[in-house]
């Protein structure tokens, strides 16, 4: 047997594929690798060309009434919202922009991309535009711009990639910067095109607000600290919805005399709250439990004696605080946080109930909310409200307490077993039957609650999946450290469970966004209903159903598709979702 010993180790060589693949090698490899694939390719290509030509001929025929879309832009956005008050909507949007800007500075999305990717997108857009140019009917006016523009983009992309060479593949461009670039580009475009001043000026301001918030956010993070800012921003996001709805999108006429009449009730409750929290966090477990039992009875009793609604709600909130106090507020720091929290809760509850009982000063016929504005309000509200419901139900269903388990399981299965439209009808038509006469909620509020109740059941199943995916060792470790069930849930298992199911939750949010279109059936004027009924029934745009529907489909598609792409990035970044 001969013995072989290598003289020295060979260095690695570059791969043979470094030589560029020719276009026609690509074609052979991907389209004509076997005879049946070749046949398939030809048949498909013919079919696609035929279908696309037909579709474009239909969509771009002179009979189509595409002209009705631009003049109705404001209707799609806000429906009948009184035009003189539109500033309110812009302020609303600015509030959201500030939050987005601050959040982007605080959470700092770290995604990076490369010039090569961007140029490839440019090139692909060019190819697509050119192909569309070839397929549209020759009479279409946009045909030549499409062909020329497409060719220019293809050239730009190809030359860029060639010029950048291997450096194009380095991922160094921050996604955030690219996004900013796209926004600036969009601004330039709307200033170049003949867009109405009432549109382009506010939009420019909104983008500037966004940029300013982001720039302010950076030093703010350094000054306040990242963790604090994250907590504060999360609270602001949750609060933004009622603030926007109650304060900005209506014109509240606040009944001050009513508010003042509450004060003799609210102030004592506030003080009692301080004392109760202090006692519950200091006294032993049993004494705290006794106090809690007393408070629960009191909180229920105020519903049966005449007292302002705000006090009844405040008592319920107080019970929540005192129940949690022995577990989470036993240290000095926790106690301080609870005191601050109770003060804040009292303030915001009084604030919101005040606004909720206020009449709107907007002068419109019927509901003043509509259009895309309403669609987003429903989606945001449904999402925010569905989280507490979903988490509570998931905890109930995985709990060791059989009655809670039975109730949560029943809720989840019943809601998941029926279509959303029946839940909407339930909120719209059945619930009022169970309420005292005169007490009825606004249609929008009812729709938000219905959507949240529905989505919450699905969310609960996602969260339950997360809870069940947590290794048993985590529970055992938490128990071994002496944590109570509440501490274990809030500090160990629930955060992990939520993190594990982020992709599923994002999927649920996307489907919730699409599902908001169902409110059109119970008569709310959301974006879909404006496009389906309201605009095509105007005398000036009769017979434009298909045009409006296609436009609506494109708008929904853009939003949903971007959400799902963003969630895909998030999923890859977190490295979860591969369960």
């Amino acid at each position, binding site marked *: *047997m*001969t*013995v*072989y*010993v*290598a003289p020295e*180790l*060979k*260095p*690695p*060589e*570059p*791969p*043979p*594929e470094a030589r560029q693949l020719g276009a026609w090698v690509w074609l052979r490899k991907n389209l004509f690798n076997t005879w049946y694939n070749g046949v398939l390719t030809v048949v498909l290509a013919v079919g696609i060309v035929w279908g696309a030509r037909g579709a474009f001929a239909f969509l771009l025929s002179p009979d189509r009434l595409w002209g009705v879309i631009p003049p109705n832009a404001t209707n799609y956005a806000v429906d009948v919202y009184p035009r003189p008050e539109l500033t309110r909507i812009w302020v609303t949007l600015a509030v959201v922009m500030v939050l987005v800007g601050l959040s982007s500075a605080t959470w700092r999305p770290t995604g990076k991309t490369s010039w090569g990717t961007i140029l490839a997108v440019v090139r692909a857009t060019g190819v697509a535009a050119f192909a569309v140019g070839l397929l549209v009917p020759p009479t279409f006016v946009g045909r030549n711009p499409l062909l020329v523009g497409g060719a220019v983009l293809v050239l730009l992309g190809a030359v860029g990639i060639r010029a950048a060479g291997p450096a194009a593949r380095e991922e160094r461009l921050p996604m955030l910067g690219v996004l900013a670039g796209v926004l600036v580009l969009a601004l330039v475009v709307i200033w170049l095109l003949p867009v109405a001043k009432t549109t382009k000026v506010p939009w420019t301001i909104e983008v500037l607000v966004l940029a300013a918030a982001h720039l302010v956010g950076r030093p703010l993070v350094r000054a306040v600290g990242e963790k604090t800012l994250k907590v504060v921003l999360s609270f602001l996001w949750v609060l933004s919805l009622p603030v926007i709805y109650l304060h900005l999108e209506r014109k509240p006429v606040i009944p001050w005399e009513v508010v003042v009449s509450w004060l003799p009730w609210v102030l004592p409750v506030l003080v009692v709250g301080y004392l109760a929290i202090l006692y519950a966090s200091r006294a032993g477990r049993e004494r705290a439990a006794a106090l809690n039992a007393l408070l629960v009875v009191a909180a229920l009793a105020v519903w049966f004696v005449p007292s302002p609604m705000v006090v009844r709600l405040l008592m319920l909130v107080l019970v929540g605080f005192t129940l949690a106090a022995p577990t989470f507020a036993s240290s000095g720091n926790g106690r301080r946080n609870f005191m601050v929290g109770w003060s804040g809760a009292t303030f915001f509850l009084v604030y919101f109930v005040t606004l909720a009982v206020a009449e709107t000063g907007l002068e419109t016929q019927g509901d003043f909310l509509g259009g895309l504005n309403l669609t987003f309000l429903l989606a945001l509200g449904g999402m925010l409200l569905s989280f507490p419901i979903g988490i509570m139900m998931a905890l109930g269903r995985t709990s060791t307490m059989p009655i809670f388990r039975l109730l949560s399981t029943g809720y989840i299965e019943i809601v998941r077993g029926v279509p959303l439209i029946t839940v909407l009808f339930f909120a719209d038509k059945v619930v009022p039957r169970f309420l005292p006469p005169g007490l009825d909620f606004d249609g929008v509020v009812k729709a938000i609650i219905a959507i949240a109740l529905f989505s919450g059941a699905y969310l609960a199943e996602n969260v339950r999946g997360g809870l069940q995916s947590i290794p048993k060792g985590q529970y055992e470790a938490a128990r071994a450290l002496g944590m109570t069930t509440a501490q274990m849930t809030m500090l160990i298992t629930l955060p992990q469970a939520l993190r594990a199911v982020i992709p599923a939750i994002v999927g649920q949010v996307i489907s919730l966004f699409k599902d908001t279109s169902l409110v059109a059936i119970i008569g709310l004027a959301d974006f879909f209903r404006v496009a389906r009924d309201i605009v095509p029934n105007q005398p000036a745009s009769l017979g434009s159903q298909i045009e409006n529907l296609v436009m609506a489909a494109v708008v929904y598609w853009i939003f949903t598709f971007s959400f799902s792409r963003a969630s895909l990035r998030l999923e890859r970044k977190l490295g979860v979702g591969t369960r």
Partner: protein
Amino acid sequence: MADNGKRDIIICEDVKKWFGDFQALRGISTRVYEQEVVVIIGPSGSGKSTWIRCINRLEVHQEGRIIVDGIELTSDVRNIEQIRSEVGMVFQQFNLFPHLTVMQNITLAQTWVRKRTKAEAEEKAMALLERVGIPEQAHKFPGQLSGGQQQRVAIARSLAMDPKIMLFDEPTSALDPEMIKEVLDVMKELAQSGMTMLVVTHEMGFAREVADRVIFMDQGQIVEEGTPEHFFTNPQHDRTKLFLSQIL
């Protein structure tokens, strides 16, 4: 012809392979003669598995030549199928088909590739299960067996095709210590029966006892090869010495 007069059954000439920019094989040249038992050792990421997976074309090499039993591995479909039915392979993760019983796992390829009747295939399967020592498990599903039993079924499944060559890709790495022996015993018996075997393993005892030749690989190339005595008493290359000192 090898120097002992036996026919060369595997010939590799300057085999190279890349994954993207990473070069996994930097030119492997060696010959394996009939009935030889070759054990391949080396640190992880050294290209051992990639190389033996190239031999039945589970990975496609990009440069160099591989000739198995006189047939060159090219993109010719007929060659690939012929070689795969002559070369058995045992995987680290067993890769039994979980939806089929043990018996069906062993008879499936016999009926569809070797075109045997069900009776013949079952007879063969039972004989092989006897040989690997678990005839009583024939009608269970893989999920009901222990790791060692699963791996023995996997060996029986490969042997049922009457292969001329058997490739073992770390067959004991996923097993509990007490199950390693039962698999190694089956492999030793197989080696003594005159099967040509290429074994990637970390079991040095097996190498010392059974191997005709040991190959040490690092950085995608063969660093040193020789008899087990040579290796375990007198290694030459610095990297070999370092590796052996770390694991022995």
